[in-house]
Each structure stands twice: as structure tokens, then as C-alpha cells.
């Protein structure tokens, strides 16, 4: 006999509202249906009432974790409509802040995953490391969540002493290689909770169009930083970790390896950052939009973010801003990940996607 178990919208593992109705037989999940929209905010509609400065501040609030990525994608789209090209130093600063954001997002996720495994010591370790990354972001921007770094044609703040950040990166790498990666890959607690759980096969991942670490943990090696480089990524030497297994352990491993690659990118960007302006010379607030639509994509911590921006010449506000966030395409895959899983494993399986409902309910 099958029965339905609702999980959410008050979720046992995650602080954001969504609901998963699971059809179970005994302890085994047979199927699931996902419900979102509990905090739908209509941000795309609000964007049509904001000017080119206000819309950046608004879009920074689509997501609390990858706020920088959202303004970066929006500004890149608006730069296509204004013909502005950010100076080289601004491009490097965008890489640095983007990678710091990836670091704190991935480390936060590792902490939450550890907590769901029942590994609370690791949770504390991860959050201690994340705090160091947040301190650096605060030192650069003055803020811990919404950094207000991006503007059309460049960035708002310089990194005055880039080399001073290297110490944090070394400490992070040391902690990752000494503690976090070995424990996540070899400890019995982590292996028994993660290996072979919540599998998303490569073909299914392609069919669902999943992105980011979820895709790369299912053997789909896509990463916009390599495939369609933006900012200064074309000048960075790094690899894209791909693991074919498709289970929770693979998603954990991919993110851990991506932390190491982010450290590698940060070290290059900080040591080779060119001198110069961070925004167009002169009065950078004066520019005009051409009529048309432009699209930009950026590799956020959770995967591809895409913005389509439509503007009319001499208009104060955009006529359309469409946001496609990574969780929006990753979350439908949870239905297939939980099929055949034990009910007790489903919170961890859901968390392994690193869902962001702030983004999804934009």
C-alpha cells in the first residue's frame, strides 16, 4: 500500500520554503512532486519599474548567497546594450569577488551537508572557514551579503591590496586538504550516507538540462567559465572537476574540488591583477542604451545564471528583465533522485542539489 508524505514547506534541513510530496511504499520513495512559489516576489515585474541604477540594487536581492553573480550577469547584459567595456582591472575584480562568492557558497553547503549527515563537528569547521571568506568580502565591499560591487561598465570599489587576501586562501586550502576533503571522501559516516544515494544518471542529467555542480557530478562537463569565458576567466588556468557517478558523494566531491580550483583562480587573479581604472573614465554615469535585447550568462556557484534584458532608447526603465536561475532547472531533477531512495535519505538528497528558493521564487 502506498501513502503520501509531505515534506515542507517548513523543511527539516533547509531554511527556505518548498514542498515535496513523496509517494512511499514502506520506507521506499516511489515518486515525488515538487511545489514551489511559497515566496514568489515578482522581481521581474518590479524590474520594469526601476531605472538602470535601481535595477542593479533590486537584482542583487534575487539571491542572498550569490548576489554578486546576479548583478554581474545583469551588468554584462546592460553593457552589451550600452557598448561599454569594463577596464581590465574591473574584469579581474569581478573574477575575484565571483570566486570568493563561490567559496563561501560551497563551504556553506558543505557545512549544511555535514549537519544533515549527523556530522556536527564538520559543520562547525566549515562555518569557521566560511567566516574567513565572509571577512574578506566584507573587507573588500563593506558588506557581508549584498556587496554592491557591480556597475554598468565596471565595478564600484577597488581591491587596494590584492596580495593581502592570499593568506586567507592559503589557510582555506590547508584546511580543505588537511581536514574537509579527506573526511568527506574517506570517513565511514560520510561514505555510508552519500555513496550510491540519490543517483542522477548522465543521460537524465542531459535530458533535464541540469547545470553547475549537479551536472558535473553526473558526468556532464559544462562550465561557462571555460565554455564561454566572461570577465577575465579566459586568462585563468584552471580545470573543471567532473565526476561521473551522479550520487550525493559525487556532488560533494565536485564542490570540494571546485573549492580548490577557486583558490587556484583567486591566486592567479590576485597576483596578476593589472593596474588601472575600475570604471570607464570620466562621468561613468552618463551613457545611453540602444533599443534591443541583450543576454548574458555567468557560472554561479550553483550553475548557469542567464539574464535577458530588453531596453528602449531613451527609456528610463527596462521593458523586460528575465532571470533564469540554476535552481530553477536543477530542482526538477530531485523527483528522479529520490525515486527508489529511503525516506530517511531524502533530506540529504534534496540538500545535495544546493537548492536556492530565493532564486527560484524570484
Amino acid at each position: 500500500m502506498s501513502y503520501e508524505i509531505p515534506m515542507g514547506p517548513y523543511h527539516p534541513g533547509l531554511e527556505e520554503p518548498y514542498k515535496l510530496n513523496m509517494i512511499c511504499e514502506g520506507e521506499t520513495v516511489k515518486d515525488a512532486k515538487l511545489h514551489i512559489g511559497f515566496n514568489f516576489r515578482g522581481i521581474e515585474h518590479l524590474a520594469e519599474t526601476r531605472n538602470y541604477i535601481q535595477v542593479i540594487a533590486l537584482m542583487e536581492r534575487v539571491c542572498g548567497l550569490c548576489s554578486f553573480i546576479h548583478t554581474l550577469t545583469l551588468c554584462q547584459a546592460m553593457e552589451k546594450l550600452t557598448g561599454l567595456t569594463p577596464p581590465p582591472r574591473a574584469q579581474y575584480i569581478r573574477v575575484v569577488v565571483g570566486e570568493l562568492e563561490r567559496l563561501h557558497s560551497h563551504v556553506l553547503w558543505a557545512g549544511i551537508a555535514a549537519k544533515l549527515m549527523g556530522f556536527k563537528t564538520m559543520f562547525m569547521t566549515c562555518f569557521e572557514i566560511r567566516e574567513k571568506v565572509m571577512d574578506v568580502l566584507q573587507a573588500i565591499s563593506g558588506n557581508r551579503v549584498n556587496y554592491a560591487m557591480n556597475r554598468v561598465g565596471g565595478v564600484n570599489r577597488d581591491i587596494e591590496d590584492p596580495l593581502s587576501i592570499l593568506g586567507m586562501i592559503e589557510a582555506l586550502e590547508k584546511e580543505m586538504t588537511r581536514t574537509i576533503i579527506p573526511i568527506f571522501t574517506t570517513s565511514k559516516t560520510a561514505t555510508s550516507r552519500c555513496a550510491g544515494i540519490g543517483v542522477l544518471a548522465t543521460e537524465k542529467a542531459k535530458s533535464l538540462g541540469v547545470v553547475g555542480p549537479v551536472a558535473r557530478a553526473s558526468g556532464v562537463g559544462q562550465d561557462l567559465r571555460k565554455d564561454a569565458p566572461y570577465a577575465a576567466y579566459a586568462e585563468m588556468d584552471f580545470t573543471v572537476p567532473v565526476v561521473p557517478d551522479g550520487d550525493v558523494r559525487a556532488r560533494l566531491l565536485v564542490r570540494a574540488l571546485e573549492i580548490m580550483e577557486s583558490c587556484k583562480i583567486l591566486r592567479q587573479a590576485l597576483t596578476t591583477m593589472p593596474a588601472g581604472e575600475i570604471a570607464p573614465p570620466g562621468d561613468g554615469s552618463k551613457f545611453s542604451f540602444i533599443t534591443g535585447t541583450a543576454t548574458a550568462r555567468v557560472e554561479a556557484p550553483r550553475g548557469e545564471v542567464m539574464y535577458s534584458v530588453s531596453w528602449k532608447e531613451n527609456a528610463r526603465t527596462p521593458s523586460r528583465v528575465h532571470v533564469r536561475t540554476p535552481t530553477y532547472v536543477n530542482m526538477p531533477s530531485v523527483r528522479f533522485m529520490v525515486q527508489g531512495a529511503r525516506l530517511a535519505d531524502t533530506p540529504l538528497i534534496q540538500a545535495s542539489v544546493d537548492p536556492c528558493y530565493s532564486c527560484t521564487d524570484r
Partner: protein
Amino acid sequence: MSTVESIPAIGPTEIEAFSEKGGVFWYSDSSLNVREVARAMNAVGARFITATTYELPANGGFRLEYHWDLTGRLLGFNFPLTGSTIDSIYDLCEAADWIEREVHEEYRIDFTGREYEPLLLRKGNVCGVNLQKEVVQ
């Protein structure tokens, strides 16, 4: 060879068939059908990204832009709607499920050939109240 048949041949040298504008490689052919495009994209292994809806001024209807990724290249296809219906591609491309449901909910556009589950982003049964400026109940 028809234009639709030429889409599967997209490669590094055939990209000239597309015109780059605003960061997207556009394929302009008003005779294209969205399902034919979806089949062609499947054939070359392109990844569906999203569909963006634009409400045209003066009750001019809608325009839908479909985007696929092919090895890092962003491909775009434009579909002006004379009414408020367009074929669904959900059966060909399951990644299009949520965006079709969202567009249906926000603009009252019907994707023919599919069944709808309850609304994705809101409760209730009324479509077209989130982004469509003039709602006809």
C-alpha cells in the same frame, strides 16, 4: 535542404547561418516551428536553457525567445505569436516543463499538446496576473 534541416548541421564552420546580436546567435526564419527547432536541437545535443516571453505593445500579442546552449554558444530562436497559443515542446524536451508552466501562468499563453499540473508559482486558478499588464479575465 530546408532551413530546418540545416539546423542539425550547426558546427564551428556553419555558424554563419546565425547572426550574432546581443550575445546570442540568432537563427532568423519566420517559417520555423518550435517543435522542429526542438527536434533539431536534440539532434545536435544542444541543451535547452529557457524561453523568454515579451509582451508586444498596443496589444500586439507576444513574442517568445527560445534559447539553447551548444558547446558554450548561446543559440536563439524567435517565435512571434499571432494569438496566445504555441506548441509545447515538453514531450521533446523535458527541461522545458517548468518554464512552459510559468509562462502559461504569467501570460495566459497556452502550450498546446500538454497537460498542466497546478500552477507553479502561485495558488489559485487564474492565469496571467503576474506580468501581463492588461489582464482579461
